[in-house]
């Protein structure tokens, strides 16, 4: 039902878009209609698929590595109040630096290949994953902790058997958020310097006033991002339901 309504909304928007293009006779290099974009998408399907594959690889690699890094950091910080007091302010401060500004440096250090884009993606998702997991790790129900202490549990075992499993929903909600941000990281990386990927293709098409191709690449990127978000969300929810039922 929700999907149906979303489709309906998208359909109305597309009709409106096509109507505007027809009515005002807008030249296609300024704003191509959705039909023209669809034609460009079909005509360049091999090219777009090739570049989309590169971007998807960057996004997924960034998501996996950033998620793993966030997991390790959050668990480490949860174990050590001293590390928390040192690292947490730095983490918050790091969010004040626009990641855009780092992209040229990453390209300088890591080159035009896929590496700089993956690092960019990791940088963007590291904070939401780490902070949402760490928050959850620090909010274990006090009754459970008391029970564990009466049972004679060590801190390490409490962390492993109690706090981490109890905090997994927090990690997963961080990961869901990361799935939305991850494509942004990859695209920023590609804009600053790349020879492949959807972001690169969009810049290229724009420079040659192939506006329809640019929109086609943008549409594929949007579908990719939404699909990733939905897939991660569904997988996380299904896994949690299975675990607790």
């Amino acid at each position: 039902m929700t999907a149906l309504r979303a489709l309906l909304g998208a359909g109305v928007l597309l009709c409106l878009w096509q109507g505007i293009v027809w009515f005002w006779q807008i030249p296609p290099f300024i704003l191509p209609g959705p039909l023209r974009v669809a034609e460009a998408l079909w005509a360049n399907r091999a090219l777009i698929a090739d570049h989309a594959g590169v971007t998807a690889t960057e996004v997924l690699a960034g998501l996996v590595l950033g998620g793993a890094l966030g997991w390790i950091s959050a668990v480490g910080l949860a174990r050590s109040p001293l590390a928390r007091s040192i690292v947490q302010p730095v983490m918050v401060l790091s969010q004040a630096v626009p990641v855009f500004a780092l992209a040229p440096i990453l390209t300088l250090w890591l080159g035009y290949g896929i590496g700089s884009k993956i690092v960019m993606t990791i940088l963007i998702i590291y904070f939401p994953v780490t902070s949402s997991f760490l928050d959850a790790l620090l909010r274990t129900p006090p009754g459970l902790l008391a029970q564990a202490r009466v049972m004679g549990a060590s801190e390490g075992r409490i962390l492993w058997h109690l706090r981490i499993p109890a905090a997994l929903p927090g990690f997963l909600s961080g990961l869901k958020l990361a799935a939305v941000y991850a494509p942004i990281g990859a695209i920023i990386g590609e804009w600053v310097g790349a020879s492949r990927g959807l972001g690169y293709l969009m810049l290229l098409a724009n420079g040659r006033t192939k506006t329809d191709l640019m929109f086609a690449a943008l549409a594929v990127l949007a579908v990719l991002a939404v699909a990733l978000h939905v897939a991660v969300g569904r997988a996380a929810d299904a896994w949690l339901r299975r675990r607790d039922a």
Partner: protein
Amino acid sequence: MAPSDTPPGLVLSGEVRIGDAPLLRGLDLVAPSGMWTCLLGASGVGKSTVLRLFAGIADGVTLRGAVRASDGLPLKGRVAMMAQADMLLPWLTLRDNVLLGARLRGEPPDPARATAILEEVGLIAFATRKPGALSGGERQRVSLARVLMEDRPVVLLDEPFSALDVATRARMQDLAATLLRGRTVLQVTHDPAEAARMGDKIHVLTTDGLLAADPPSEPAPRAPDAPGTLAATGRLTRLLMEHAA
């Protein structure tokens, strides 16, 4: 607990403060060895703090006085606790929840004993199910099973039955009385009827201090409709009303 071992009694004396604010003054509480002692009192009077002192988990509480076992040995490792909320882990099966203590201490688990205990509390059919599938009463039976699995001579009960409906509560009281017989039990409750049914000894904790009350002459657990139980319920209720803040 081997039947030959005599469980220690519990002794708490002195003054209890939370931060700088005095909570309880002139305490002199004794829970005799192998008996069921009820600590009755209004909400917020400090009953749970008393339990936490015996359990060794009273964070932020200072005691000027002594909390000890009557045999002079440390209480640590000889106490099991059961709280109002069942504190079951939703991601573990009932059997694994019952085995939680061993898992948290890094000891080899004894699934055969866990099975036998689940049989005793009448939940063997659900051994491989998760707590989410159970009613409140069944969940508290799992909690009781976990206490039995821990097999400690001292058992602290923090209003474990107060969230249950009347009939379920009465059945749980009978089951707990049967299965915990022979251990030193200290049960905190705000329900005079519960104290009148269960207590070999009954103490009433008020803002004016600790008052001893006479339990009915019949052995516990007493029938809820026995004249002695009803009379004691009435006496305890009046005592609570007289000392209400």
